[in-house]
């Protein structure tokens, strides 16, 4: 079977693994796309000496298995008889290698890091008669990757390249031309006892040290509150108690800055969040808001007895260290939020937005301790792909934004939309309910994730924080989902939540916040022995949910999960003691008053101020070559095609897709928003879109936030979403808000959110903030640009009345809806010119809502053939996208563009081409509907600016009638796909 011939030089000093070693390679006559990819990535690093790379899937199996059993396992489970060749090596023997192979690189996960493939083998063997060991001992498996290279390369150069492309040091070990991989399972050391931490007599210096060394991320003021609490109790806290407080009070869980007291330039703000975001929702009081801000996700009415819910989360710091695992667990976590909202929703769509450093960054300029932005983006895309696709949830909307200030601190947003019956919107916990822990087992994964996410990164982050990284296992989560939704419909539990940041401590702490809970930590199912009670309590092992189950339903719910092969373990009960009581066996390892835990956080007054940057307004300089500028804009990373990402996501699974991420004649036009038809029996739909523009934030945080909301709304309205039935989500990622300027910018952005949401009548239903997004290089601290992602979920009355952005037919009219101002501050045009300053776009809050309502009415009445919003790059980019997506010509006159009065430094053509003013759309209308369309828009700013023609060229004429540019749609499309493509 094997074509293997050569033996590597035997190296007697190596300790070869005491396990059967199996390597499965593709047949040598078949291509190896994995190897081809690696050679491309090596070439990017300047390594071109290798001529062939092939990937082998490696397995280590228990050494006590008989050879015949190993062969059976391999041929039945590990290899395909048509595609693969197999090499089996006896324990402690040197492996054979492929013909002509000069180098081998082995990559294996560090002990204790999730290896789901190994789990699948072990699980399958445990349930079959294929191979077994004497005495019923479990067959153990570990997996690794074996890369084989042809061509000579210096070992150091190979190691350098391997560590940048084949492996991630944080979670994996690499062997270059060595075969001594380990067959070790995590240490089986004795359980560490719970310990008490002497705090009562600690000095301030000691308190700070305890917080830092314990990775607690508690401030001195908070440590004082903890110390005083235990002084009053006349005892020291246990490690479990201290960890619980740290997790519960973490910025990640508590949002203590956003909800804290602020002095803003002498003005007192009691609670910024309540005063802005929540206030807008409260004042709007929309009857279709079913559950907002109090649960894992916001719930809004959808259709009949069905609701939809939406949540977007950030997973920034873990993704900086391990892009693949960080993004995967990010999407896994937000899916669990939706599984855990109310009594549980079925996830029906995912979204993802990435903010990364420049993709063409010189390798030499990548700061120490950081990964190249390209590698980060590839990793996060792969992480979302592998988790979302495996869960069977279509990833339908998102974006990529590039800025050099994200190099050390990329932002990764992941969102999930869920569908649920109305009766499942509310949850309650009753004393006596059993605490049921469901799903994955608990290990040392992600210890201190919640507190880690609240601290600034530095170059040692990837070393000290590796335990904060978790690896997801989507199939375990899918099993949990399958069981959970069945148990929900049988009404077998009363409440649930997901284990996210802070693990069980946050989940049970939250559920028991009103009543109390008693937990037996020794009952929690573990991946491997040896965890201390505190580790069990705060582990962020993935794919776990906590349910409150009435005791009479315990057997029934266990049966439901058993049928799905999911662990479901009773680990305690909810009580009426108002105390969180933690036991390990008989021993109490912690007792915390729930009121202190949830209400005892000190609320310090934080100072905030905002000093506008003084930058001269460059106006809108004339554009000498508009055609070249347009092509450059289409290639620029924020605007260029994201097709290489979109096509890797299954955006069709579940069969509900109506408007897809890519649309048009060749399916390469960037759609404004996605539309789904979630219920087969109803034509109602949901539109999902987003808006963000970090370039605006540096100049004007108020305008940035207002424009982000406008953009998200434009996107959903453009496809047919109803602006009157649109819910929005806020996700702030900010620099360190201990800096009053950062906090001042946050105050302004939050106030813009309030004013804009109220003006548009679009309530916030959920949100999250991630502060302290900074990165230290040497003595310099680089803060990310203030970044607000606004996500929108709009009701679509009838999916048959939706539209796409591609031009449809020659002869149709093109209208521009909305007024163009001299707003080029933060624009992509000035960015291309290397200019800063200028007025940042912001919607006219009196007019914009009417504009959206009028356009929506026209779409609903089927008066339009296509609609595309104007955003990055302004009219020129929008027109180009509309033309090439339809493979049709557009002939447009700038003289007809409705424009506000422009100052002298704003060139009339450049402004009309490239201004990014808000609430503007290009709309295609057939002649026969022109009258009705114009009546529908009566009173709004709009004008007919041109026509669709069969020329397949984009022609833009200046205010004096001169031809500014004339480009073929194929040139435009080529430029648009000319950016980074993975």
């Amino acid at each position: 079977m094997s074509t293997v011939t050569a033996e590597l030089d035997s190296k007697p000093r190596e300790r070869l693994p005491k396990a059967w070693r199996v390597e499965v390679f593709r047949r040598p006559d078949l291509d190896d796309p994995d190897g081809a990819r690696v050679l491309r990535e090596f070439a990017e690093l300047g390594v071109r000496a290798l001529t062939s790379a092939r990937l082998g899937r490696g397995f280590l199996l228990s050494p006590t298995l008989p050879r015949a059993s190993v062969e059976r396992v391999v041929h039945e489970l590990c290899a395909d008889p048509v595609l693969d060749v197999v090499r089996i090596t006896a324990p402690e023997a040197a492996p054979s290698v492929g013909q002509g192979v000069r180098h081998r690189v082995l990559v294996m996960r560090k002990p204790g890091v999730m290896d789901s493939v190994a789990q699948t083998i072990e699980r399958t063997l445990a349930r079959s008669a294929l191979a077994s060991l004497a005495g019923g001992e479990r067959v153990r498996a570990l997996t690794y990757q074996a890369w084989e290279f042809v061509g000579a390369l210096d070992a150091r150069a190979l190691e350098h390249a391997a560590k940048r492309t084949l492996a991630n040091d944080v979670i994996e070990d690499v062997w270059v031309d060595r075969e001594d991989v380990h067959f070790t399972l995590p240490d089986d050391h004795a359980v560490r006892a719970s310990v008490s931490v002497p705090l009562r007599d600690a000095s301030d210096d000691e308190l700070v040290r305890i917080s830092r060394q314990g990775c607690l991320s508690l401030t001195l003021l908070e440590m004082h509150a903890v110390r005083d609490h235990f002084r009053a109790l006349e005892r020291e806290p246990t490690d479990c108690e201290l960890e619980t407080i740290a997790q519960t009070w973490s910025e990640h869980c508590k949002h203590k800055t956003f909800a804290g007291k602020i002095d803003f330039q002498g003005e007192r703000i009691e609670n910024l969040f309540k005063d802005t975001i929540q206030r807008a929702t409260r004042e709007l009081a929309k009857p279709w808001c079913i559950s907002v801000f109090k649960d894992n996700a916001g719930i809004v009415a959808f259709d009949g007895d069905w609701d939809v819910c939406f949540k977007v989360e950030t997973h920034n710091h873990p993704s900086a260290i391990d892009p693949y695992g960080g993004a995967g667990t990010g999407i896994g976590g937000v899916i669990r939020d939706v599984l855990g909202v109310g009594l549980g929703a079925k996830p029906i769509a995912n979204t993802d937005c990435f903010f990364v450093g420049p993709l063409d960054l010189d390798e030499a300029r990548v700061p120490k301790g950081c990964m190249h932005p390209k590698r980060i983006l590839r990793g996060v895309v792969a992480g979302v792909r592998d988790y979302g696709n495996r869960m069977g949830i279509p990833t339908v909307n998102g974006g990529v934004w590039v800025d050099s200030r994200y190099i050390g601190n990329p932002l990764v947003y992941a969102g999930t939309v869920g569908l649920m019956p109305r009766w499942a919107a509310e949850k309650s916990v009753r004393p006596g309910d059993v605490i049921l822990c469901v799903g994955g087992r608990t290990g040392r994964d992600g210890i201190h994730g919640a507190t880690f996410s609240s601290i600034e990164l530095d170059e040692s982050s990837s070393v000290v924080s590796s335990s904060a990284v978790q690896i997801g296992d989507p199939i375990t989560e899918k099993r949990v989902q399958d069981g959970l939704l069945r148990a929900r419909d049988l009404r077998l539990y009363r409440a649930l939540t997901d284990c996210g940041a802070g693990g069980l401590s946050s989940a049970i702490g939250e559920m028991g916040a009103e009543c109390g809970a008693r937990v037996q930590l020794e009952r929690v199912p573990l991946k491997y022995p040896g965890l201390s009670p505190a580790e069990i309590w705060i582990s962020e092992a993935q794919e776990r949910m906590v349910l409150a189950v009435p005791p009479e339903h315990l057997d029934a719910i266990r049966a439901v999960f058993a049928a799905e092969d999911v662990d479901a373990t009773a680990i305690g009960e909810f009580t009426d003691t108002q105390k969180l009581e933690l036991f390990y066996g008989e021993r109490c390892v912690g007792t915390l008053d729930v009121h202190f835990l949830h209400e005892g956080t000190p609320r310090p007054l934080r100072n905030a101020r905002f000093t506008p940057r003084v930058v001269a307004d460059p106006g809108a300089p004339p554009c000498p070559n508009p055609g070249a500028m347009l092509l450059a804009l289409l290639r620029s990373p924020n605007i260029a095609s994201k097709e290489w990402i979109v096509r890797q996501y299954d955006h069709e699974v579940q069969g509900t897709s109506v408007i897809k991420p890519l649309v048009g004649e060749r399916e390469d036009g960037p759609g404004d928003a996605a539309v789904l038809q979630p219920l087969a029996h109803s034509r109602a739909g949901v539109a999902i879109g987003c808006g963000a523009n970090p370039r605006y934030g540096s100049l004007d945080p108020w305008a940035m936030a207002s424009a982000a909301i406008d953009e998200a709304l434009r996107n959903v309205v453009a496809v047919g979403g109803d602006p009157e039935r649109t819910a929005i989500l806020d996700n702030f990622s900010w620099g360190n808000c201990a800096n009053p300027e950062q906090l001042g910018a946050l105050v302004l952005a939050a106030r813009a959110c309030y004013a804009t949401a109220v003006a548009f009548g679009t309530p916030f239903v959920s949100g999250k903030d991630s502060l302290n997004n900074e990165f230290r290089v040497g003595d310099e601290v680089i803060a990310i640009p203030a970044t607000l992602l606004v996500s929108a979920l709009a009701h679509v009355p009838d999916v048959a009345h939706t539209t796409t952005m591609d031009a449809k037919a020659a002869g149709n009219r093109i209208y521009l809806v909305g007024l163009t101002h001299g707003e080029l501050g933060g624009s992509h045009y000035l960015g291309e010119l290397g200019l800063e300053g200028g007025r940042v776009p912001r919607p006219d809050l009196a007019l914009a809502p009417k504009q959206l309502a009028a356009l929506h009415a026209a779409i609903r009445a089927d008066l339009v053939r296509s609609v595309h919003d104007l955003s990055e790059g302004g009219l020129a980019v929008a027109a180009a996208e509309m033309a090439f997506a339809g493979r049709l010509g557009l002939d447009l006159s700038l003289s007809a563009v409705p424009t506000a009065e422009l100052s002298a430094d704003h060139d009339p053509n450049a402004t009309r081409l490239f201004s990014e003013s808000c609430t503007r759309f290009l709309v295609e209308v057939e002649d026969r509907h022109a009258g009705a369309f114009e009546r529908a828009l009566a009173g709004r700013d709009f004008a007919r600016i041109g026509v669709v023609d069969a020329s397949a060229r984009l022609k833009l004429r200046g205010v004096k009638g001169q031809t500014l540019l004339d480009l073929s749609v194929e040139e435009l499309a080529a430029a648009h796909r000319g950016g980074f493509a993975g």
Partner: protein
Amino acid sequence: MTVPSSQSSPGTAGAPGASATRTVRALVVRTAGTNCDRETCLALERGGAAPELKHVLELCEKPVLLDPVSIFVIPGGFSYGDDLGAGRVLGFQLRTRLAEALARFVAKGGVVLGVCNGVQVLADTGVLEGVRTARAERGVGLDVNASGRFECRWVTLEAQASACAWLEPGELLPVPVAHGEGRFTVRDPSVLQRLKQNRQIALRYVRPDGSRAEYPDCPNGSVEEIAGICDPTGRVLGLMPHPERNLTPWNHPRWTRLGPRAEGEGLRFYRRMVETASALAK
């Protein structure tokens, strides 16, 4: 196990054509990682069958569940994460626990459909090439896409003159693919000859105008652009693309550019399959 109502109801409740007098029963097998069960059940139901969703563990315990059924479907997804290879573990379960039941099912005229992960499973079991194909005799496998990437895009299929009774030769069918390992690969050229002789090549990727496809119209580099294969009886069909994701007039990626359509083209595929199964059962 019965399926609790609202688990499947987002797809199936109130779907047109539901009726108590249905005779064509379909069993859709699911397991950890199955994720196309919603659209598959909906397609069967709208195609005129009565689908039931069953967990593979239950089916392994009770193979008699297949007895009253005319159609057996393995839907898409990532069964067991495809951790050991696409469809491998579910294939192993079927090979070791349901081989006899499946052979009997096909022999008595039952129809078997595998879509995406389902065809990967059918290939792994050998059933795709003909029931009772020994593992060592297998000639067809599904390799990683030539692009090395997962590919989600709409493609056009052309039905071939094949043993499969419910495909109309020459017919074009727009459908989405969404897979990372869909590249039909044969052990050697004689396998391709055998497939042709037995009229087993059922579906090919073509350009939208029917001409020969290259990437991306053929999304995965399959030998001779094969998208689907049937067994020599024509009653077992496996294909990588997803006709069940093209049921409504609004699933098509260019529906806003097309004239009015009453339904998605994938629905016809399922309707004919159900009709064929119904005729075979009589």
